[in-house]
């Protein structure tokens, strides 16, 4: 951003032309290293079992087979795991955006007794490591009767202090005058949040939505602990637990397992590439102000 504000004739090149070539070369090598494992994942997912273990290595599948995806989707029930994961992630996202936006609005704009204290306690909870929560939270969920139910995954993790903080930071930049004008027109507090704050904080909401969705979609340890029955599993739990079973039982069906991995990774990469601008600006917001 700051570079844009500097006129071109004042910009100093950090490196000369030869150095620039080196920068590009290093970046391209780095980007390839970053991307290459994914290419291997996709390539393996489209191979027949014979090709998977062929020597010398087959870099590309020939012929291309959809068999692994069919097997993962139907025989290993990934269709169901996919829907479970989608449901959990969507519900988490809706709750997260609503609740964090309300709290962010209150902390940014409203005065109430104990506001600073409550906010500081929330910030302090950021130091609590997830590993500390694993055992006692399981017992809480057990008492509530939420074991083996989606609600046990969705509700405990739908609010994050980071997201409340992000909403608060963004909402404090919305001009107060808009809110005051609405209040003079007789808008209720809820209406102000609903009609002024929500529409104007869409970029921050998009960021919170993406964070929540990605977090829920990629979650593993908690669903692993809570979801006992196979028909309740998420994609990640299925991948994590079935892999040992499959390796033993089916002589390492890496084609099927990579097809399963593609099913987990690809939707998120799709969402990410579509909403990339929101995502990056949101990350920068968090990085600079957090």
């Amino acid at each position, binding site marked *: 951003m700051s570079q844009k504000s500097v006129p071109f004739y004042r910009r100093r090149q950090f490196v000369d032309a030869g150095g620039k070539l080196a920068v590009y070369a290093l970046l391209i090598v780095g980007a390839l290293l970053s991307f290459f494992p994914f290419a291997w994942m996709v390539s393996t997912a489209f191979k027949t079992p014979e090709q998977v273990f062929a020597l010398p290595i087959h870099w590309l599948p020939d012929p291309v087979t959809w068999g692994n995806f069919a097997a993962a989707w139907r025989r290993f029930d990934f269709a169901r795991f996919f829907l479970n994961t989608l449901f959990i992630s969507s519900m988490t996202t809706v709750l997260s955006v609503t609740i964090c936006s309300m709290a962010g609005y209150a902390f940014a704009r409203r005065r109430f007794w104990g506001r600073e204290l409550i906010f500081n306690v929330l910030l302090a909870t950021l130091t609590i490591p997830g590993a500390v929560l694993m055992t006692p939270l399981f017992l809480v969920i057990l008492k509530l009767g939420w074991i083996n139910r989606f609600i046990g995954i969705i509700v405990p993790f739908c609010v994050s202090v980071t997201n409340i903080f992000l909403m608060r930071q963004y909402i404090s930049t919305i001009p107060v005058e808009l809110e005051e004008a609405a209040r003079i027109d007789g808008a209720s507090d809820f209406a102000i949040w609903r009609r002024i704050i929500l529409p104007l904080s869409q970029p921050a909401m998009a960021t919170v939505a993406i964070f929540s969705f990605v977090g829920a979609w990629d979650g*593993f340890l908690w669903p692993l602990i809570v979801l006992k029955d196979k028909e309740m599993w998420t994609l990640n739990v299925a991948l*994590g637990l079935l892999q040992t079973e499959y390796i033993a039982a089916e002589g390492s069906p890496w084609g099927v397992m990579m097809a399963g991995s593609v099913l987990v990774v690809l939707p998120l990469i799709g969402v990410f590439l579509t909403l990339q601008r929101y995502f990056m600006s949101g990350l920068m917001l968090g990085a600079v102000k957090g």
Partner: protein
Amino acid sequence: MVSSHFVRRGALALYREARLNHWSYLFVLPALAILGAFLLYPALYAFRMSFYDWQVLGQSEFVGMENYRRFFEMPNVRLAVQNTVYYTALNVPGTLFAALFVALLLNAEIRARAWFRVLFYLPVISSDVAVSLLWKWIYWAGARGLLNNLIGVFGLPPQDWLGDPKLAMPAIVLLTIWKGMGGNVLIFLAGLQSIPPELYEAATMDGAGLWARFRHVTWPLLRPVTLIVLLLLTISSLQVFTPVFVMTGGGPANHTLTIAFYIYNLAFGSGLYGFAAAVSYLLFAAILGITVIQRRYFGDVIY
């Protein structure tokens, strides 16, 4: 008349403000209820549990410091601590310097910066389980594994990456550096872009070369950002779980057994909830301690 009008308005404003107060609590209530029930309460509950021989069903027995004493006697605890420290010592500097290096490259005036950022960020949004499985396949032992084929080009013999006690942990670290780098690149990049270009101009006029500019301008000005990256990386490294669960299951011969994996096994494998809670609290204390030390070491410097 005028003064009473103002008094009335003042009273009205006070009344309105008092009314607003109550509505404010409604706005924060859902968030506070959930964080209280599923974050604060369990964290405190765990502290109490750590002094009990905790049973899920039946009577729990108060055992005082027994769980903490046991921590120092259990044979695997030592290993788990050592392995976690080893992992953290490799992963934190590895990821930090890789991310800083890439961020410096991206901060040069290049085209297609956005595309590079996206490419480096792909591993970050990918699920831990899926990429751990993918790297387990890349590390496949014997001549048919991808990595063994690649090193074979240089005439190196195939390795049993995840089965060799010496190689297993570094292999996991390589995966987590690959996976974790992109997010930290963005943090560093944000920090780099907030350094005023004038400083580099002045340094260049004073005859500073590439290294001198990095050493005397970039590195000191980036210090707060480096501290954030260092803290976040350390906290997450001390809790590493999923790659271990998927790739090695703690093996070979407990050489990749980490504390988080150990806690998981204690609670959900052996049903030792109280002991697991005690180990979690010691981890919590360690994380807090390291955070304070890093903050003090990095934070007190004034430049």
